[in-house]
Every structure is written in C-alpha cells, then in structure tokens.
C-alpha cells in the first residue's frame, strides 16, 4: 500500500471541479490534438456525491494519461522492453543518469550480424505492463483522497494497448468501488487514444535493421537517415566501447505539448576489433570519460606587467596549446603568462586546445580583454540606463571621470549612431528595427594611449 501523497491534495480539488464537468458531459471526454494528445472515454456509474465521484473519474483518466506517456516513454527508452532481465544481449549501464533515469541499459538490436528487433506484439505487451505499473503508482491507492470519508476497493488494472495506423488505443479494465456513508459508485473501464503511431516508427527501425544486416561490417548511417527522411524525427548515435564498436542509437520523436521527446533507444554491435590495426584508431575518444576543458571565463587584464591565467581541464597527461602561439602557455600546467605591456588595449581572442595521452583533445575560446589604465587613460563612467523602449529618443554622453588627461578622441563601434569624437555625445531614436540586445564598443584615445568599454543594452517594445 502506497503512502499518502499530500502533494496531491491540491490536485484533488481540481479534479473535483473537473469531475463535475466530466459527469455533466455524460462521462465522455475527448481530447483532440496531434501526435501525443490523448483522448479518453470511460464508463462510470455513480450514485451520490457527484463532485467527488467526478473527481475520481478525472483522476483515473489523468493517471491513465500520465501512465501511458511514462510507460511508452520508458519502454521506448529501454529499447522496447519494460524490463531487460530476460533479454539476451544488453548494453549494460550505457550511460549513467542518461535521460533522467538512474540506470540506462538498452538491448542490442544488432549483434553478431543478426537483427534482434523484438516483435511488435512483444513491445505492445511491454507497453501494457509499463502503463499498468505506472498507473498503479499514480493511483497510489487513492491516497490523495484520504480524509474525505470514502472507501476505495479496486481490482488490479488491466491495460490493453491496441496499435493502429495513426496511433494507439489504451484500454483500462479496472473495477473500482468507491463508497461512503451515503453514496457509492463503481468504475469499470476507460479507453483513451494516443496519437503516437508506433507501427510507423517500428517499421522504420525494422527497415533500417534489414539494411544493416545486409552490410554487417559498418554502421548503416545512410539507411537510418533515409528511413527517417521527411518524418520530422531525428536521431543521434554515441560511439561506445574500447574499439568504438558499440553504438547507442537514440531516435527522437518530438511530442507536441511535452517538454521531452519520446526517445527510442537501442544498441548496435559490430566486430571492429579486427579493424584496429587497419584503422589505427588513435583518437578513440568515447563519451564516458572525455577530456574536459572547463569553461574559459573571459580574462580581464587591467594591470601592467605580468599577468597569469590558469586553464582548468581534466584528463590524463594533458598537453596545453594555445593558438595563435603568440601567447605563452605552459604546455604541462596550462598556466598562461601574459605581459600586458606587450599589448595595446583591445580584446584578443585565442583558442586553447587540451590533448590527453590518447590524443583526445578539446578546444575552447579564451577572450582576453586588455584594458590597462593607471589613471592616465580615459576612465569611463558606466551608463545608468541599459534598457530602452521603441520610440525613445536617446541623448547621451559618454563620460570619463578623469577629464584632466584629455582631450580625448572618442569612437563607438556600432551602426546605431555616430558619436561626436570630441564631446562624446551621441543620440538616436529607438525604432522597432532595434528590438533585441545590443553591444557597443566605446574607445577613447589621448596622448597616453587607448582605453575602452563595452556597453550592453536592450531595446524592448513600447
């Protein structure tokens, strides 16, 4: 018996309201929509408190909907199985915490040159098991209704999934007797339609595997992309295993109205061990333990002299290289040394590449903003306003706090306005053309050199 989930109390109130509406329309509701939108119909005979009974009906329908989505989702993610215990060929723990599941193992659909796609009837049965179990979890022995004075007696739910062209019917056979001191009601069955055409998708995978077995030595990526052509579905594959001979394939089916796609996952295995000498796979980077280059934060250099920046990365025997090579980096430690007196004030973009002992590498950009100012260059004052509306007229002046080092020669890198080179005044009218974010690069030059500032602002609708 599941514990009462107090979090569902709020839902109960909603279901009471919905339940009334449900009954008013004679217990028949049909949700229409695309791909995954679910329609239901149910049989419910009731006497007594209509609101609670209607609520329970809505609750059951909602649970069936949730369970159907979760069940199908989970079976697809498990390659057509709710449980992989009885499956002969399984790629175990393919990825930890992948797809929000604590474990992630998938069956091989192709191994040893043979096709191991389960029969569609078997997958349908797995859908039924998964939906039923998720339904039970969702119902939670009507714990959400605890305290309302009703007694619930129910049978085990029996789910029947019928795949048809264009979608799937999910039938729930579930005897429920709900009674209180002054009322009772019975529920027997409900049915819903999920516009998720699994037959279509199954046949696509079947077709791909048929092509795959014709050429068992290599991943038939062209065949897979062909079977998905024009469907709006897409796939990705991950190379796994020491020889890269295990592939995890995920096919994504976008589901309108849902955050997550249905993901149909399965594994493919190839005999590529013999290829190693031919291919000399020296960069067999896998997805489990790649070289990691941690986010390279922009480096703001504001002081004269030697400056240091530590590139953070993870991996074995890493070698750090910077491009262009005008920047000095310790190839073993990743420590960058820069003498700001060698640079004029500007933004410089470099690329850092980190390579491990197996020649796996990662590269990332490092932006160095050099703006050294000992007080004898323009010190910009920040603008107060950074949001403008369409229709605004902007009249602004770029100010510096150390006017005594002037005169300055001002520039602004933008197409929005021209800046007066002496007074630093600029103006423009904000039109709808400018909706969105903007960044302006200001610079000021005096006899001692150049300093600069970036101004970020946003234009919003009136």
């Amino acid at each position: 018996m599941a514990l009462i989930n107090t979090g569902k109390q709020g839902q109960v109130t909603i279901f009471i309201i919905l339940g009334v509406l449900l009954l008013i329309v004679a217990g028949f509701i049909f949700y229409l929509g695309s791909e995954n939108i679910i329609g239901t119909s149910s049989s419910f005979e009731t006497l007594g408190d209509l609101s609670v009974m209607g609520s329970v009906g809505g609750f059951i329908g909602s649970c069936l909907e949730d369970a159907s989505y979760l069940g199908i989702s989970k079976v697809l993610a498990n390659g057509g199985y709710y449980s992989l215990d009885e499956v002969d060929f399984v790629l175990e723990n393919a990825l930890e915490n992948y797809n929000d599941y604590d474990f992630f193992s998938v069956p091989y659909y192709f191994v040893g040159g043979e096709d191991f796609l389960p029969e569609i009837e078997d997958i349908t049965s797995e859908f039924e098991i998964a939906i039923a179990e998720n339904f039970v979890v969702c119902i939670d022995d009507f714990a959400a209704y605890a305290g309302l004075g009703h007694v619930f007696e129910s049978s085990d739910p029996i789910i029947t999934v019928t795949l048809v062209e264009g979608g799937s019917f999910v039938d729930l056979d579930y005897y429920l007797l709900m009674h209180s001191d002054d009322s009772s009601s019975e529920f027997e069955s409900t049915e819903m339609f999920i516009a998720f055409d699994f037959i279509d998708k199954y046949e696509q995978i079947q077709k791909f595997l048929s092509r795959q077995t014709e050429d068992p030595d290599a991943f038939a990526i062209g065949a897979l992309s062909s079977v998905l052509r024009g469907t709006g579905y897409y796939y990705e594959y991950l190379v796994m295993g020491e020889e890269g001979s295990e592939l995890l394939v995920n096919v994504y089916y976008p589901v309108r109205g849902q955050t997550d796609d249905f993901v149909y996952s399965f594994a493919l295995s190839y005999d590529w061990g013999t290829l190693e000498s031919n291919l000399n796979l020296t960069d067999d980077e896998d997805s489990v333990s790649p070289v990691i280059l941690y986010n390279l934060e922009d480096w703001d250099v504001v002081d004269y002299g030697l400056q240091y920046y530590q590139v953070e990365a993870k991996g074995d025997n890493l070698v750090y290289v910077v491009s262009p090579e005008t920047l000095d980096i310790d190839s073993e430690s990743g420590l960058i040394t820069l003498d700001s007196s060698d640079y004029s004030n500007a933004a410089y973009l470099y690329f850092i590449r980190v390579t491990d002992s197996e020649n796996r590498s990662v590269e990332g950009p490092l932006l160095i903003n050099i703006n050294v100012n000992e007080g004898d260059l323009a010190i910009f004052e920040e603008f107060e306003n950074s949001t403008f509306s369409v229709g605004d007229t902007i009249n602004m002046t770029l100010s510096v706090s150390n006017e005594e080092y002037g005169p300055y020669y001002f520039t602004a890198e933008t197409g929005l306005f021209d800046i007066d080179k002496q007074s630093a005044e600029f103006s423009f009218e904000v039109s709808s053309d400018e909706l969105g974010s903007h960044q302006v690069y200001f610079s000021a030059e005096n006899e001692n050199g150049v300093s600069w500032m970036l101004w970020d602002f946003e234009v919003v609708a009136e």
Partner: protein
Amino acid sequence: MKRIVLLIVICNLLIICSTIAFACDEFGLNCDVSYDSGTDWSDSESWDDNFNSYPDEAFSHDSGQAWNEIYNDNSLMQDPVIRAAAFADDPVKSSAVLNLHPEYMDDPAVLADFDAALISAGEQDVLDQREDPEKSDTQSRMLNKNPAAKEKWMKDSFGIDMSDSSVVLRDYTGDSITSEGENGLSFDPKAAASIPGDVWVDKDGSLRNENAYFNGGEISLDDNGVAVYKGGTMDVQQGNKEGFIVVVEGGKVNGYRERVYGTDSRPLYTGSFTYIIDENGNEHLNGNINLDSEGVTIQGEMYSPKDSYFSDFVLVGETTLIQHADNTQISVNGKEVYYTQTNYRSAGKFCEEGYSCIVNTPGSGGSVDYRERLSIIGVSNGDMIEIKSPVFYSHLEVIDLQEGSVSFSSVNAEGGVLGKMTVGQGDDITIQGNDLSKMKAGRIDVQYEEGINTILHHWSSNDYQKDEGYFSERNSMVSCTVNVDCEQTLAQSFGKVIKDGDAEPKTTVVFSGDNVYTARNMESWCKNNGGCYILNSRDLPAITNSENLVVTGHHWSESNYVWRDSEDVNIPGGDEHNPIDKVYFGGLKGSSPYDQLPQGDSVETVTFSACNTVWGNGNTGLKELDSYYDNLEQVQGWDGTAPLHENVGDLGKDFDEVADARPLTYSNSKGITSTRAYYYKEGDTWSYTNDGNSCQKIGSNIVVECNPAVADGS
C-alpha cells in the same frame, strides 16, 4: 640490314688484318702469314702500281708517299684493301679523306669501316689516355675535325642529323656516344634513333626531335626497344606527334599542355616513369611521377588531356596520388578517374560525364591544414576511390555516385585514422568506429537521384570556425529531399527555427561570419515577423522558400561571396585573414552545389550585415544576385565597413520608410564612416540609395528622385 652491315664490317676487318700481318687472296681469304711480296718500293715509277697491289706494305714502307697516293686520288678510299690500310695507318687522315667525299659512305662497306675505325680509335684512346691523359683524342679528331664525315656517318648509320657543323661528339663505343655542350648528353644512337620522328643533335649538345629536346642525362635502350632516358631534362615540344614514348628514370620532363602558363607551357614531371604522347596530344605517364609544382606524387598511371591545366589529370587503373604538404593519399582502383586540384571555384568543369571525378580545391587560405572542397562526383564504372587525409575540408561531398564506392578517412598527423565514412550507391553510407565529429569537415553532403527526386544526406560541424556554441552539432546525418524539405530539415537539425505561428518561416538568416551577434539579435524580430530559419552557412540548402535572406559575414569589395575567418585567425594580434566557408551569390558550372546562397523564386530581398555590399557603382555582387534571383526587388547592405554588432531590423523597407528612418552610419576605428545603403529594382534597372530620397541608377552617374512606386511594388 644491320646484320649485313655487321658482316661487311667483319669482312673488312679481316681484310685489314690480312693486309697488315699477312697476305691474302683477293677475297681476303687463304692468307699466308709468312707472305712477303718482295716488292721493290725504291722504284718510283712502279710505286703507284705497287701501292694498289700492296697498300699495307706501301704504308709501312713510306707512309707519306702512300698518303700522297690517296690525296692525289681520293677514290682510292673506296678500295676496301687500301681503305683498310689507310685506317690502320692513320684513321684521322682517313676520316679527312671521307670528309672530302662523304658520298663514299653511301657504300655500306665504307660506312662500316668508318664506324669500326671510330670504335677502334676510341678503345685505343682509352688505353692511351690511361697512360698519358694529355694524349690527343684520336676518335674525337676523326669526328669533330671532319664534320661532313661525322654528319654523314650519324645520318646514314643511325638516322640522326646534326643541326650544325660545330656539334662536338666524343666517346663513341658502338652503343653510346656523347655530345658536348651546355645540354650535352650520352646516348645510344640506336636508342635515339628509336624515338619516333626526325632526330638531330643540336649545337648545344642536346638531342632533339620534333617531339622533345633531351638536355643532359643519358639515353639507352630497354629490352623492349624503347628509349630509356636517365637523369636529364626532356622538353616536350608543341606540335608533338603521335606515338612518342620514352621511359624516364630519375629525370625531368617538361611536358607540353595547351593550358599551362608561366612555365612555357611545360609542366614539370620528375621521377621514373614511361612517358607517352598519344594520337590526340595527351600525355600519358606510368610509374612514380612527381608533379613538384603541384605538390603531388602519383604512383601508377595518369594522363593529362592536351587542353587541360597542369593541375588537371586523369588517374588510370590502380593508382595513388599523394599530396606532399599533408600526406593526403587518394587511391583509385578502376577505369579512369578525373582529378583536378585547380584552384578555381569552377574546377569541376574538368569532370567528364560517365567518369568518376575528384575535385580537390585548395582555396585561398594558404593553410595546409585546410582545403576548400573535396568533391567526388559521378563515380562510375565500378571505380573504388579511397581517401585518407589529415586536412579539414570545408566541403566534403559525394555527388551522383552511379557505380562504385568512395571511402574517406580523416587521419591524424601520424596517419592514424580518426574517422572513416564509406559511400556507395544511394543511401549506402556507412561509418566505421567513430562518431561524425571525427570527420575533419565543415559539412558533409551525399547527394544522389532517386526517381524524380534528388536526395541529400547531410552533416555539419562547428569546427574550425570561431563560434562553436550557437548552433547544435548533432552526431547524426540527416536526409532530406532537395526542393522539398531540406531548408526545414537542416534548420531543425543543425540550425534554429524561430516560428511566428504555424506558417513556414518567411526569412532565412545565413550566418557565414565570425560571430552570431546579428543572428542572435534577429531572433526576437523573427518571432513577430513571419518566423525565420537561422542557418549556419555550412548547412545551407540548395533551395529556399523564404522571401527574405539575411546574410552575415566578411565581404571584400568587388567580390561576389561572403566568408568567415578560420578560428585561429587573430586580426588584432596581427594575423592575416584566412577566408573559409565562402558563400557565393550565385551558382557556377563546376562549383559545389552547396557553396552558394540557396536559390528560390520567392526571394525578394537580400540583406547583408557585411562590408562593401551596397556601393553606388554596383560592383558588389549585385549582378550575380540579380541573375540568381528572378524576383529580387531589394538588396540592402553597407556602403563601406559594416559594424560588428548589428541589429538588421525590418527587411524590405520602401523608399518612404528608408527616408523616414534614421540614417544608419558607422565609423570604424580608423574614423572612416560608412552607411547602410540599398539597391532597388525598377524594371530591369537597379538604383542605389542611402536615404530613400536620391536614387542613382547603377551604371550611370544620374541621380534622380526615388520613385516611391518602385519600392512599394505598385
């Protein structure tokens, strides 16, 4: 004929011997080694008769008198016995007599005697000069002091002419002779004679015929009777004749092609190979061939059509091409595979229908790590093409594969394979042991016909470009039907789709520069203005259904393409630009189908966020855009430098809107001001304006008031 000449030579030698050491009968037979004629050589009146009867004794008794007899009557040299005695006594004088009467060598016996005397003298010279290097060279004097005899001998013996009497020959052995001079060489006269066409020795020492000049080195004859040329330089000549064949070993060949410039129409081949010119003037080479100026070595067989560039050739049979700079290996096994590395966008024009073709275009960047295009087109005849390369290719394409296969492997510097892809017919595309990111390519396209449809399989990376974060990099190859759903599919898979309702987006934003500021800034505009496809230029489809194109990137004045810098370029740090991922404003025969803006009848406006894209003189690629887009009405861009951070705003403004809008100007860091400007089309004429009021007709300096009806479309 050669046997007859040899027999005559032997007979004459026997006669010579008989007259020197012993007396023989008139046929040179039945010799008596103890024979002495007992002639009284003191009787001057009978000297002549005695000389004629016993010339050998005459020379030994009084050589001067004997030679006087011959000088007085040169025809005596036609007598084999006298001639033998003369050559035995003094081959140089004998040669001098023949030089006066080269016609004597019309008699094969005389010719053979002269030849034998030359060989004999040469052998003696060798012996003599071992003892005394200063000793004069008899053979050389026989030849070079007697040019008429020399010329007659070479011509009649071997069919070889002399261009000039000053030609110096030496060291004749019977199988070899050496010409002196700047381009002198050693050659087997018989080998030289085997080279088709008239052959002569030039005064610079070179051996020449109408097909080629042989400068320096050595020519011999192989077992198949083909001339083998070692160590020198062969200059193939214009107007060469059919059937020219030479085996080259370690030498150089300056071949002849009609479209090779800058090297006197002579592409340079080095190495060891057979060189043939066929009946059409095409060059065929088979062996180990270096094309140094092209930076490649070809192991196997190739030929070069007469009218092709030096960077165009055909790989035949089982042949491997190796690029020196990066060790890229292209192996073909099949019939004939056309190959071009001509650095033109239209290089594919070299391809021939019915034959496999490889287009390997370096591009303008000058980096050995990067090449613009590797396109394998129309693979036919069961050809198998295998490529291993460490190079990053902006475009990697397999187009219209008919029959055969292509495998491409990206390799690291040590040659280890990082990723391998194999392409067969249709969607027979396979991967072995890698994810797609291991393929060093900006985009991979496999395109083929399927019924009435053209199918594209596509993948792209974000590598080698500066921005790697804005677009997704998906480890999958997507497939779409060209002309149907490629724009949508590629945007969904690799770009962004910004929807405004359910309708198909009306605008396609093409990111082809260094940063995504403009594309990102447009996202909010797209949501309220009909939606957008935002695409990296590496994911451009061939066709668009959009009405508006927004194109970002670098653009040089008077060019018809935009581009981005490669990731390693740091302009503030003093680097030069390295333009990659060029996107042209129109198609071109022989170019990649995916190096250009997508074509579409629906396109009405093209908006650039790029420098120098709208000028008053129209030299900005407008002509290409106009011919590419039938319904194009407006182009907007920058007259001068474009700002880095730009929000393009509303597209397709009419004149009034432009006039009412704030003029957009921009001053770059050098203080140079540029303006946003527009082209508008009126009938077949384009006008330029930057204020919506004054319009200048392209191609003239006439400035008129802008006609609002034009931009209104009314």
